């Protein structure tokens, strides 16, 4: 059975690109538009991996990751941060929030699938 990936990004462009890359790689894709929406989606979905942006309205990526980690049902889901920001402080902040790994934008399909493979069995 193919894996389900939840992507959380406020940019429609990014969501479309992620969807295209992930569907091409054979994943099921579920999408959310920001952290709050992401947590809502998680009430009905059990993705194998979550990919989230950091800068989002309503609830940013850090808040979202913390929210997922605080949810008994999803706390063990690997979360990849997709961000243009690659500074060590930003990574540290994401890690402290509970991120599993990260992908730096701009990404390509290969990089994306590679990162998913690294965190999901």
């Amino acid at each position, binding site marked *: 059975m193919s894996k389900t990936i939840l992507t959380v990004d406020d940019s429609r462009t990014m969501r479309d690109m992620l969807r295209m890359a992930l569907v091409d790689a054979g994943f099921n894709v579920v999408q959310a538009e920001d952290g709050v929406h992401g947590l809502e989606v998680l009430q009905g979905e059990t993705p194998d991996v979550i990919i989230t942006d950091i800068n989002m309205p309503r609830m940013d990526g850090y808040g979202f990751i913390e929210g997922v980690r605080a949810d008994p049902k999803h706390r063990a889901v*690997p979360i990849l941060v997709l961000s*243009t920001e690659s500074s060590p402080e930003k990574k540290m902040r994401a890690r402290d929030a509970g*991120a599993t790994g990260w992908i730096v934008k701009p990404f390509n399909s290969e990089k994306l699938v590679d990162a998913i493979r690294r965190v999901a*069995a």
Partner: protein
Amino acid sequence: MDPMAEIKATFFQECEEQLVELESGLLAMDAGDDSSETVNAVFRAVHSVKGGAGAFGLDELVHFAHVFETTLDEVRAGRLAPSPEVVKPLLRAADILADLVRAARDGGSVDPARGEASASELRAITGMEEDGGADDDGMDGLVFTPMQVSLPPIGDAPAGEPELDIAALLAAAQPDPAPEPEEPGGWTLTFKPKAELYKKANETVLLLRELARLGDVEVELDASELPLLPHLDPEGSYLSWNIKVRGPAPEGDIREVFDFVESDCDLTVAPIGEETEGLSADDVAAIASAEAELDIAALISRAQTAGSEPAQDSVGQGSAPEAESLTPAAPAPAPVAVAPTPAPAAEAAPARDSKAAAAAAAGATIRVDLDRVDRLIDLVGELVINQAMLAQRVNEAGLARASSVAVGLDELEQLTREIQDSVMAIRAQPVKSVFQRMPRLVREVAAVVGKQVRLVTEGEGTEVDKTVIERLTDPLTHMIRNAIDHGLESTEKRIAAGKNPEGVVRLSALHRSGRIVIEVADDGGGINRERVKSIAIEKGLIAPDAALTDEEIDNLIFLPGFSTAATISDISGRGVGMDVVKRSIQELGGRISITSRPGLGSTFTMSLPLTLAVLDGMVVTAGQQTLVAPLTAIVETLQPRRSEVHSLGDGARVISIRGAYVPLVDVGLSLGYRSEPLDAEQGVALLIEGEGGSRAVLLVDAIQGQRQVVIKSLEANYRRVPGIAAATILGDGRVALILDIDALVAASRGTEAPRMLQAG
């Protein structure tokens, strides 16, 4: 369309939205709003444009957005206060960003000097270095660490792995900074995860699998720290691994595997053979004897990470079959794992969720192709006509008003009207989309004419039909330019007059009695009536001895060929005056008027129909023709008495209404339906009010009734006819013309009469 092109189109669409967000956010900051919400929204907008631009390789855009973003980040972090000196350059940068986006979309180009000027301005604010540019934005997060390790020669490479050797050669062919004096042997790793590693959903078995991709792997589990069950923290981490990776992979590749977890584990990497030889026989025996405990250990480790997938065969061809063979036996996440969840977080989450759900429900939208909506509107228009026809047939068939058919038809009429309103609401959009283009215009015009101007907008959420909105931009643009160029005094004059040197242009929208009213007001000097009048006389627009009210003088500026500016500036256009604005408003079925108070400013008021698709009309007969007069223009209807009508010399007539003389327009005569004037006492008079409050009386043969009609453009289907605004189809299937009230009023005043008659 290929998928990438489609996504790119989405990107540009999204950019436009982000640019709007950006501008409105910056304007809010300019007005003193320094809330983190606003600053974050502004930051995100630029960030989002940059992110997408990077994906499409739009380097120029990325570069500028990066400088912009960096400046905003300073503001966001509170290191830079959003003072006017900071926000103004940000606004200019937003304009350039918008130009860059459009240039990228339409293939144009932006003057690099402008972009550079703005970028330097931004750098100056933050004290950024030149070309602190977009360089840190690339791949450095995933770049392999350059190697400084020199590999010691290894005696014996593991034998009997020809396939791996080929892979090794291929890998070695890639650029590899590490000097390789001899065939590399591999690496010995010790890996001790901390509990945090598992909390972040990282997984040892996956790391091991990644290592196995780099070479031949031997994995050995060290369970020596595993406590007895009573002392065991179910979420603790007690296991560590000794791993040997044989193959040519450089240390960077090995460490890269642990990139995500480097701060959550103790990791040592050393070349094979440097440390004491791997596994002693004793160790193996110890592990074997610990097998019983290992069962539990592995289960717990699995429960912590809660993965449900089977372990990989590819891992662990080496000497640690115990660890590997145990993992598949993992059960579903154990319930104990729930316990440590912090209670406050669990409570906070549902509260946040319910609020968010409400917000999401309020903003739920779908995107629909405009053609579909237009088609639906057309169909509803047909439905209205059809329903009117049906009503007429029923009436003709002589059915009683109280008959069930007639009652049913009434209900149908109500329903039709509701459907129509609902469909119209689909097309309705807030005027915001037009209003938000104006701040930039104001900035640009203000800069050119050298005045300080503040734009205040109100009622941006007021909704009006999309077609009206689309055609509102040009007249509004012109009026705002006019207000800044002609309406506001120069800064010196304002100071001399004791006014705030910064002029205010107010743009507002509101709904009033089924129409949308849009006002453009300035707090300038008001209309110089002396000058307006003398110019009008000079240009032969009015007679030198004409006695005009203040209001009439103000309205002179709408006459064709009138321009008050002594020098025609390139701001308000060349010879294009308010008459063009007036005409485009009229084409929308609207009216425009001006009020002006000397020293306090002028206000232009536009009143527009909410939709161009339907109209409440009075159906009248004139010279055997059925015509429709827009109900909104009709003030009252009256039965004229012969004594009230007075003839003027040239055949024109006026009617006295409560002591005031109002021009009388014989509709049948002025539209050419008959050649003899209608006896006023034989007809019905409609008192109408055109834009600016000017009144006239339309004389028609009879009134048929009041009806909602569907507007069909005459221009689109036939051609423009003076005095006629549009056409409609009545219940009996005949076409009726809709009167252009303003043209008729103007004709009655003689101002536009010659043109109308010539064109007719």
